[in-house]
Each structure stands twice: as structure tokens, then as C-alpha cells.
């Protein structure tokens, strides 16, 4: 039997980095860690070596709840024809200011 090279108790964490104050945290990848403080340090050591961040979130991958791509049509298509949500849908005469 081949021994697994890493014990299963090291969980997979997804890493989110805020590049600069004012921006949101963005997903950049994942790290393995035995606990949350380790995950944070690993994320810092792997993903911020080139000043890519000022803040880090780590979330256990199993805790991420994601929409099902199979439902993409039902979830995201209906928004397509609601173009009245966009300002360009409305014809306002040029002379009218501040609209």
C-alpha cells in the first residue's frame, strides 16, 4: 500500500487577498494547513511575497457554498433581458443636466 504523503487532517483552505485598502478580497488560490492560524501564515507566505496584499481571509474549502453550474441557466439567464436595470436603456435629451 502506498502511504499518502500528507495526512488527511490537513484541510484545504481557500485564500482571499485584499490587494489595497479600498478593494475587495479576491480569491487567489488555496493552501493546506492543520489549523486556521497556520492557514493564514501559509497564505501570507505563498500569496503575498510581492506586496500583493494588505489583508488575508482564509476559509476552509468545505465551508464554501457554491451555486451549481447545472443551474446556471435558471439562475443567471433571466437577468439578461432586464436591460431596464441599466442606465443606457433610458433616452434622456442631452439638454437635461445632472441625470
Amino acid at each position, binding site marked *: 500500500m502506498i502511504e499518502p*504523503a500528507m495526512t488527511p487532517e490537513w484541510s484545504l483552505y481557500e485564500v482571499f487577498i485584499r490587494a489595497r485598502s479600498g478593494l475587495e478580497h479576491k480569491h487567489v488560490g488555496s493552501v*493546506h494547513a492543520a489549523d486556521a492560524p*497556520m492557514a493564514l501564515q501559509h497564505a501570507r507566505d505563498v500569496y503575498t*511575497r510581492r506586496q500583493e496584499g494588505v489583508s488575508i481571509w482564509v476559509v476552509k474549502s468545505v465551508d464554501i457554498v457554491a451555486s451549481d453550474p447545472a443551474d446556471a441557466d435558471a439562475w443567471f439567464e433571466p437577468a439578461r433581458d432586464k436591460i431596464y436595470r441599466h442606465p443606457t436603456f433610458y433616452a434622456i435629451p442631452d439638454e437635461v443636466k445632472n441625470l
Partner: protein
Amino acid sequence: MYTQGLDQHGRQEAQPAAAESAVLGARFQARIDAEERIEPKDWMPEAYRQTLIRQISQHAHSEIVGMLPEGNWITRAPSLRRKAVLIAKVQDEGGHGMYLYSAAETLGISREQMLAQLNAGTAKYSSIFNYPTPTWADVGAIGWLVDGAAIINQIPLCRCSYGPYARAMVRICKEESFHQRQGFEIMLALSRGTPAQRRMAQEALERWWWPALMMFGPSDAESKHTAQSMRWKIKRFSNDELRQHFVDVTVPQAEYLGLEVPDPELQRDAASGHYRFGAIDWSEFQDVLRGSGPCNRERAAARRRADEEGRWVREAAAAHAAKRAAPSGAPP
């Protein structure tokens, strides 16, 4: 570059038994043709998934095994600046391995399984890392030639159809250019140095030139997987195209260094602007692939040792975390 052993893999594509599967397959191919990115939970043919798992994991393995030939010289780097740069480079390679393992894990394989495959020898890594680094000049040659070849292979991968792999490649490409520059800078310093240093550089070029050309893999006529990988936009250019590009950009660099490429048939073709070069000895490539290269045993042994000797550490960390999480455990 990272699909060595795929031809021997022998995996059959799942037969499209139901009409639904055929429809899904057609829709999938249409998305690929429209340059859409496939993301982790999207439907994909099983063969697409397996090809990617294989390629991405072998790419990841190449990065971490690649830490060894250069890691050899960290303690012996001839200046403090070179030492710092080399540590940063090897650290980057470890990081690249991690980005790629992360990408592969989105396809339903775990890091544990991938490392087990590496240690068992069932997964391959780029054959180039089975060559030794006997001198400091080899560190320069690796940066210049091996990272140079990798960059040429990796830039098209930034537009690979699978999202996580493409994004990992974008990240890697940003970091990789310093790797090649540090290697070239080492060679430059040597070529401008003492006669002994110039000789060191020349001999390193002679050791690494042909293995670097072999990195791009055999001519695509030899591989039945190329066509399918191109259709799925995992592969964008043929091995020969990429190899030719590498030769074309690298030979002028060697000329600038005042070093001689070890190929008597190397000649610039004025009409096409390309360099014609000699025949590659693929038997050496096959030997290395089969495990008989100069350092296959050493690399494999080093990886196994690190994993085995690290087992008690990983177990300790897991045990500690479990104690902290247990309701009857000590307060954090």
C-alpha cells in the same frame, strides 16, 4: 512538456452511451470553440478531466522536483546577493507547485494522492530535473535555458481552456521572468569573468542545451494526444513550434554571451529567419523518462525522504489542531 507518460496512460474516453451525454459533449466543445473558460464544477468529458489532472499534477511535480537541482547551491552561492536571489527563486518554484496543486485539486484529486503518485513513480515530472548541477554555472544555465523554455511553454497555457490552470499560469508567468533574468545574469557575469569562469559557463551550456530542447517533448507526429489536447485548447502550439521559437530566441543570447551552442549543424536560415538545428537524440530522453537519467534516483529519494521524515511533523500539527477543537480540550 508535462504530458510525459500520457501516451502510455491508456485511459479510454467514457463512451457516450446516452443521447444526453452526446449533447453535453457538443455543448462543451462549443464553449471551448468560443474561447469560454471551463470552471471546476462545470460538466466536462471524463477524458478532459483526466488529461488535465495528469498534466497539471505533472507540471506541479516538475516545480517541486525542480527545487532540488538549484536548491543544491543555496548554501554555496558565491555572493550574498546571489544567495538571496536563489532562495527567492527556489521559494517561487515551491509556490508555483502549490498554485498548480491547487488547480489540480479543483478537478477531484487531492494533494495527498498526487504526492503519493509522485513518490510511487507513477506520475512523471519534467525530465530536465534529472540532470545534475555540478557547478555554479549550472544554476545560471538552468535559469537561462530551462526557465526560458518553461516560459515559452507557459505563456500559451495562460489561455488554456480550464480556468484554474490558466489563472495559475498567469500568476506563474509573472513570477517566472525574474527567474530567467537571474539565470542569464549569472551567465553574463561568468562570461565576463576569468578564463576559468568562462570555461565553467561554456561547459554548463554544453550540458544543458540538448536537454532543454528535449523539454518540449517529441515531435507531435509521435504523440496521439496532441490533437485532442489542441481541440480542447489545453495545448495551443505544437511541440516543434515551441521548440523552434526557443532556439530562435536563445541562440542570439548565447552569441551575446560569447558562448558556443554545442550543435555543429546550427545555422540561421536567411529566408525564414529561423535557425536550423541538428537532430535530437531521443534515446537519451527515453532513458531519462524510464528512470535511467543521471539523477532520477537522487531526486526521487530526496522527495520521498522529505515526505517520510516530515510525516511526524504533519501528524503533530493535525493532532494539535484536533486537541484545540475537541470540546473537552484545553481552552485555546
